[in-house]
């Protein structure tokens, strides 16, 4: 709770959090918020300029851009969030097990992670989409498969640190069961670390997934997705540049908000991170997190 309080003090972080929350809510309640059906084609309105009925104008099929933008939140943000949750969840459980029990389980899991991590993440996702075929679901599978090892590795590092702390040792000594220790003593303290790692990956995943859709490897027509909207706008870039504006801005805003938030999370977690002499473990942790997490699309 301290974490959230710390963050709330940071105005920018508070703003970012509000923006993200608003966007997520808009995505969830898209059917109520969108003024029109995002798939409704009306060729008479092809490339119509913004009007009161269609606030952002209409696209090449006369569809309402505003509604498409709102529905586009689902694949562009919500599904990314789901893929992130899935890979963090999967990687997190394995990381917990490896970091807590150590020994042979740990060694085996980490070797598997080594192999997975020796494929550049982006290349791995591309290859999996290539073999399963383009489409939203396949893209999600690709991202989960390509990312989990990274989270497992990071979370293990963080868990190990706490597993060796005195209070865990004490609990073990008095015979508290492993499950109980993990649930009550490890997970709560490791959560902030997990939050940092996953938030820094979130932004890059949004960029990469919209990049895939931009290339035609992701979401398939007619579903609205920001990357695809940009691709459609791009084919008339010079006759109608204004079409790029809305989806382009939407992506930039979300990614910036997520990046701010992730920075704020890190700072809130360790306010002295940037100024003081860092604890070696922590510094290593956040530096590599940044590096691997942020392959830009």
């Amino acid at each position, binding site marked *: 709770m301290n974490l959230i309080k710390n963050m709330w003090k940071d105005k920018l972080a508070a703003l970012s959090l509000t923006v993200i929350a608003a966007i997520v809510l808009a995505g969830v309640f898209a059917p109520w918020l969108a003024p029109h059906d995002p798939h409704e084609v009306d060729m008479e309105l092809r490339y119509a300029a913004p009007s009161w009925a269609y606030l952002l104008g209409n696209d090449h099929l006369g569809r309402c851009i505003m509604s498409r933008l709102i529905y586009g939140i689902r694949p562009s943000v919500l599904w990314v969030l789901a893929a992130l949750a899935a890979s963090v969840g999967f990687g997190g459980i394995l990381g917990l097990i490896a970091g807590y029990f150590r020994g042979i389980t740990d060694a085996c899991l980490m070797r598997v992670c080594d192999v997975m991590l020796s494929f550049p993440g*982006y290349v791995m996702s591309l*290859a999996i989409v290539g073999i399963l075929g383009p489409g939203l679901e396949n893209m999600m599978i690709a991202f989960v498969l390509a990312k989990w090892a990274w989270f497992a590795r990071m979370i293990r590092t963080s868990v190990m640190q706490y597993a060796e702390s005195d209070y865990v040792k004490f609990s073990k000594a008095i015979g508290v069961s492993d499950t109980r220790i993990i649930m009550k003593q490890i997970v709560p303290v490791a959560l902030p670390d997990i939050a940092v790692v996953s938030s820094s990956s979130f932004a890059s995943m949004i960029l990469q997934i919209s990049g895939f859709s931009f290339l035609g490897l992701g979401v398939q027509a007619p579903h609205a997705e920001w990357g695809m909207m940009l691709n459609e706008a791009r084919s008339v870039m010079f006759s109608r540049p204004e079409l790029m504006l809305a989806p382009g801005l939407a992506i930039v805003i979300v990614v910036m908000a997520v990046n701010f938030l992730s920075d704020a999370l890190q700072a809130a977690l360790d306010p002295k991170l940037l*100024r003081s002499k860092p604890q070696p473990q922590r510094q290593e942790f956040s530096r590599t997190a940044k*590096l691997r997490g942020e392959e830009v699309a």
Partner: protein
Amino acid sequence: MGAYIIKRAIISVSLLAIISFVTYGLNFLSPLEPAQLVLQAQGVPNITVELIAETKASLGMDQPFLVQYFDWLTSCLQLNFGNSYVSGKPVWSLLGPALLHTLQLTLVSVAGIILLSIGFGVICALREGDLLDKSVRGVLFVLASMPAYLLATLMIWYFSVQLDLLPTSGMTSYRSYLLPALVITLNYAGIYFRIIRSSMLSQLNEDYVLYGRACGLPERTITLHILRNSLQVAVSVFCMAIPTILGSTVVVENIFAWPGLGTLTVNSILGRDFPIIQAYVLVLAAAFVLFNMLSDLLGAALNPKLRKEL
């Protein structure tokens, strides 16, 4: 040092072996029968069950998995990745030149990233908190939050169309490098800039700085020491930037019609040309492992302490 190199090399080689195994295994993820794909690619109109069996036999696909794998591996080691399903040409004849083109673009971009991030990183760390620091950080932050395709399109629009300075696409002269490399550089500079800046900052708080100041060393000498120490971190980071960017040029290449790996791979995905996808993964993963090793070795050469780890 010698022992360290050998140890590191052994790890890399075994990693490469496992990687090749996983890459080969990717085949089995495909919902389609490989023999059928081969036949489709050859344009055989009527694919019967017998024909599939026959093709399987002739391609050795009826052999045990491990035998198939070793056959495949030995031919890959000779740069024989089979033939493209779509054009029928040897995969390497397509992948080789594409790899070279992407490598060229990557190196130009990495050079740009190094110059930009070290330059700004050092200046901003020394002037932490003032206007310059804040604005550089702000600009690089926004640039890193932009999708590459948006940045690229804006750049084309401004530099090629409005100012009519640079070619819009293709790889025709050294001027063609500028725009795509600039997009990659600006997209990634933010990340590397932050690493340099924060490692500079953490060095600034080290005891030796205080000590140096106490002894009255000139500020320049102290700064150089700080720079030297923080660049140690940077060397391995920049080393890994090469394979990372090598694998992430896909979008930029597609926008600029760069005849490189990214364009080739996306076309192969859309054309279901699996041998190319497989070779692409293998080559890039190998590059990743090799650069990883290189970066560790460099780190060890620069900092003997690291040699003990492993």
